[in-house]
């Protein structure tokens, strides 16, 4: 039940919604993703903007820093999932327990993010 396998853009560069409030980390992730052939929307640092983008923007994968200045990005993830998009958390917290139970099964990338893991998380390749 991987939504990306049914997605029309599967195989090609993904459109990645990047929510990360650290400018340096966000621009590094954007560079890594763009070099891998993906298109990056954002980076977005504010929670309201992230929520709006998750609900309306055109993207395949949402890459979400969990703790933003205005709160957590849990609702952003829920909105992305509700639209059938993938959501991946990026976090400095090692434990999943800080996440609400319904989101604990989502993939998490630990900070500092390893470029190869980032590329593989966004584009797992053919199933």
């Amino acid at each position, binding site marked *: 039940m991987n939504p990306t396998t049914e997605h029309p853009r599967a195989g090609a560069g993904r459109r990645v919604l990047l929510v990360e*409030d*650290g*400018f*340096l*980390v*966000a*621009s*590094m992730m954007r*560079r*890594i993703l763009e070099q891998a052939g993906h298109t990056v929307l954002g*980076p977005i*640092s*504010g929670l309201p903007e992230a929520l709006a983008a998750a609900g309306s923007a055109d993207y395949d994968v949402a890459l979400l820093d969990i*703790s933003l*200045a205005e709160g957590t990005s849990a609702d952003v993830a829920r909105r992305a999932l509700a639209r059938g998009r993938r959501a991946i958390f990026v976090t*400095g*917290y*090692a*434990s999943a327990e*800080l996440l609400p139970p319904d989101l604990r099964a989502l993939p998490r990338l*630990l*900070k*500092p*993010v390893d*470029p190869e893991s980032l590329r593989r998380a966004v584009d797992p390749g053919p199933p």
Partner: protein
Amino acid sequence: MIDSQAATVPSTASQRCRALARAGAIVAGVVSVSVLVGWSLISVPAVLHLYQLTDKPSPQAAVGLLLCSVSLWLQARDRLSRPLWITGLAAAAITVALGVAAQAEWLLDRELGLPNLFTTAEARETLAALNIRFDGRMSHGGSALLIMLGVAALLHRAPPGPGLIVTSVFTPLALFLSLIGLLGFAFAIPSDSAFWKAIGIAMQTALAGLILAPSLILARPDRPLMAMIISPMAGGYLARRILLAGLAVPLVVAVVEFLHVPSSWLGEQAAAAVLVVASMGVLGIVILVTCSALNRADEHRRRAEASRALMLDELDHRVKNTLATVQAVCEHTMAGARDMRGFEDAFRGRIRAMALAHEALAARRWEGVYLRRMVETVVAPFIGPGAASVRIHGQDVLLSARAALPVVATLHELATNAGKHGTLAGPGRGLGVDVAWTIDDTGTVVLDWIEPASGIGPRGNPGESGGFGTNLIRGLIAHELKGSTDLTIGPGGVRCRMIIPGSGRRPDGGPRP
């Protein structure tokens, strides 16, 4: 020889314990002297008549207890000198010897004539005239008390080990023996009963023992028993409350019983019932009050532990975020560097700027940083001797912790560029930089970085890693602080205006760090 406890600074609690021990020694000494005065040496008739009502304290016991009191008084000191210690030991040794001699009298079943050593013939005659039976031997209980107290005084300075164990057993035992003796009087046990044959402590002996035993414990506040009682921890709190109540309540009951207060009102059986219920009530209240205090202490501890766990989580999070930022700085700097040397300089400078901001934040416990000081520190490495200066205009502002890192990083990139290509470049050439700021009532800081036209031409090529530096200047404050940065590079020089919303406040008259 220096005592281990004398080498450390005594706390006020320890000093108080030792002072109390000395006071106890004096009181016990007075009680013993009263026996000798009334009984044996001077035979004051009034005191003799008083003693007739009670039991007959033997003069040996009085002498032994007096010497034990002296020994304790000499030794219960924060800094114990050698002569005092040796005198104390000698006194305690005589106490033990008297106790042992009394036991020997019982074992050998013959008199050693000890009372004659401490009584006058006149006193003995008075006794006979008053028809007081005095067999000359110290009781079993009295001599046991002397031995235990004497040994405890002898072992006053015993290091942890068997000596300490012996005193830790003997002092409470002496206390209980004295208490049993006193309670025997309180409950008016008939003097020909088996109880008195076995214990047989005179009231004055028991009283002196009851004072001496706790004083011996108090004299060494560093030992486990006392350390537990004066401990500021929950255990010490519990010990102070429960122990006091546990010892005091039965004693009060015994005294009340002795005075026949309730029984004269209510009759024997009802009085016994009332005393039992009353002591249960008092003990119950003490236990409940103590337990609620312990609960509060425990709750505080739990809350502290929970907040510590939260803090550790937060610390972990911050460290990982910082590592992620360092990683990002490294990646960006690598992407922009032409060679290793270029990378080294740029990377080192950027990490240094991050460290500076962290240091300034930590120094003020993450309350914020002073903008003027931050600007001075960031530009300092780019100003050599005789080089261009950085002119700072603006009243000092305390910048929030959140804004500190982005502002410092932006300023660092501006200063780096000015140092390489702009008005800070090289001695003599530089025209310097003006940094000015204003703050409005909402806390929004507007900061201007102004480099006049340097005369070495506009900076067409920002140089190695300049692409990233310029991106950082333009994007960092906007992204992380919802502010904006307007950077213009042209023939008129470099102008950069940062708008940092809601991040500053005027220091409220406080001193600058």
